[in-house]
């Protein structure tokens, strides 16, 4: 009898383990699919042009047969990297455009958005909830709805076709306020009350208590912001005519099919900063995604 019971228990445990294995398998298949593009970019970027041409021939000749690929190229080469990094000055111009745009936007959001998030999180005055609701609505409006309004004001300020046309509207975006708000809101306000009784000014409370204690929300806003603005497309497409001002994200599609290896190499280099920020900031990123779900 006891043996039977043991058997049953063993069976149950085995079933649980099998279920877990099955679940792991079911998760791995999409995970591999997700990784494949990265692998393709990486292998393509070190593949010799002629070899790549042979593999891609069916695609551009639109003839018979299918595309082919080797995960380990027959003729591996770093020539694309050499050409991109040492012989393509325009790539650098656009790379620095991207860096400049992202850094200016993030710095502006820190200066403007973070105090605003603090105002909403730390004080509850009459009308503040309605204002916050307005900010949430503005956060959710897509660029296309506000495109004409932004254009009208940028045109009047004579900022069209300058980097400021991209930076200024982004600085006043309300998404980072929403994310930083989550971080500030998690601090118990009794702390500030104690500081007030000790005679601290409101500014000092913000700088010495709010910022250090609420920094996770702020950092998550910065990480999400970096990924978003490194991928900037709609705004420069509409507001920048001069291609020398474009960010990197608009350069890649300009490279033709015939230079697929070079394009993949440029893609990989573009991906590096984003991947770097992703790996460093993943915890904050997740935190930010969760904060964006906080509601009040």
């Amino acid at each position, binding site marked *: 009898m006891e043996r039977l019971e043991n058997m049953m228990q063993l069976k149950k445990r085995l079933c649980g383990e099998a279920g877990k294995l099955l*679940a*792991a398998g*079911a*998760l*791995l298949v*999409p*995970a591999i699919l*997700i*990784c494949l593009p990265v692998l*393709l*970019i990486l292998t393509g970027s070190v593949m010799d042009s002629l070899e790549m041409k042979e593999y891609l021939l*069916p*695609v551009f000749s*639109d003839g018979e047969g*299918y*595309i082919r*690929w080797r995960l380990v190229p027959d003729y591996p080469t770093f020539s694309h990297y050499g050409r991109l990094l040492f012989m393509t000055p325009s790539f650098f111009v656009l790379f620095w455009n991207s860096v400049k745009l992202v850094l200016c936007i993030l710095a502006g959001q820190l*200066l*403007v958005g973070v*105090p*605003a998030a603090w*105002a909403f999180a*730390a*004080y*509850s*005055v009459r009308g503040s909830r309605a*204002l916050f609701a307005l900010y*949430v609505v*503005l956060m*959710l*409006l*897509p660029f*296309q*709805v*506000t*495109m*004409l309004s*932004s254009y009208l004001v940028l045109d009047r300020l004579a900022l069209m076709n300058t980097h400021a046309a991209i930076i200024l509207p982004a*600085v*006043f975006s309300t998404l980072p306020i929403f994310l930083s708000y989550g971080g500030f809101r998690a601090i*118990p306000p009794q702390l500030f009350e104690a500081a007030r009784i000790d005679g601290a000014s*409101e500014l000092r409370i913000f700088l010495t208590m709010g910022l250090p204690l609420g920094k996770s929300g702020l950092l998550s806003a910065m990480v999400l912001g970096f990924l978003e603005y*490194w*991928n900037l*497309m*709609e705004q420069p497409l*509409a507001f920048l005519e001069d291609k020398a001002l474009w960010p*990197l*994200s608009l350069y*890649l*599609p300009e490279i033709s*099919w015939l230079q697929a290896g070079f*394009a993949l190499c440029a893609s990989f280099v*573009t991906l590096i900063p984003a991947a770097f920020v*992703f790996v460093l900031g*993943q915890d904050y990123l*997740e935190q930010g995604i*969760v904060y964006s*779900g906080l*509601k009040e």
Partner: protein
Amino acid sequence: MFVIKNRTNSLHNVERLRAGIGGKRGWRRRRAFFLFLLPSFAGVILFVLLPFLDVVKRSFQTAVTGEFTGIKNYGVIFHNQAFVLAVKNTARFTLVCIPLLVLAGLLVAFTLSRFQNASLIKSVYLFPLAMPTATIVLVWKMVFYRQGFLNLFLTKIGELTGLWGSVTTDYLGTGASFWVLVASYLWKNTGYTVVLWLAGILAIPNEFIEAARVDGAGRWKCIRYIILPNLKGSFYTIVILSFLNSFKIYREAYLVAGSYPQEDIYLLQHLFNNWFVNLEFDKMAAAAVCVGAVLFVAIMALQRIWDKAE
């Protein structure tokens, strides 16, 4: 019971602390609130609210001369074939994508929640969020062109099973392009949906589930009666964020297929851009007001539902 009452009491105190008690301190707080908010609010007024009022005004005027025309622009856009097509496609895309994304995220999150340490898989799912759209466009072309990887893969399966011959569907030039967009939306956005669902699932106190287990509930009953009802808050957040991000699919659509793509993926975003390029500001203004109003009502309705659910 006592505990709950105590908790609401302390919540009440927290609100009182934020609001400030007494006249002089209340004034100090109002001033601080105002000063902290000022730079941002000034920018929002200057860059968003005032120009939007201008757009509303323009929606009742002609594009060039600025003559008042009443609601004529609105009449024009509703009879404009491109606008009707774009609205239809955008609505179809949203209605197909969001349920799919919500379900896919929930499935993955459930499966992940069974493991103690799943951060690596979570990172893998989240990574597409970090990949700039431009880097992925060439890959999408290699996969979805007529001689691309997808057809190669399908043909290989056909050869192995002997069920079909070579597959030569053109995914970007036919109605299939819609599903290419859906796939790339899911690829990019499943990760954050998983993170949100997972946060919701992990926030459910273990005691709830253990208590149900003791009372004899099986795995499915636990899911049906305890986990799902507790995820309502996450659900609304996920729907709102998925909606917000569904507009960004324009990047993929534009980079893969240009300003005038196959007609099943001609979205509102394409239309706005083309109007902008052609300086048709009257139509743009009317359409922006319409889309803005619809979104405003939708967001308010969702917030109302959200408030009720809590």
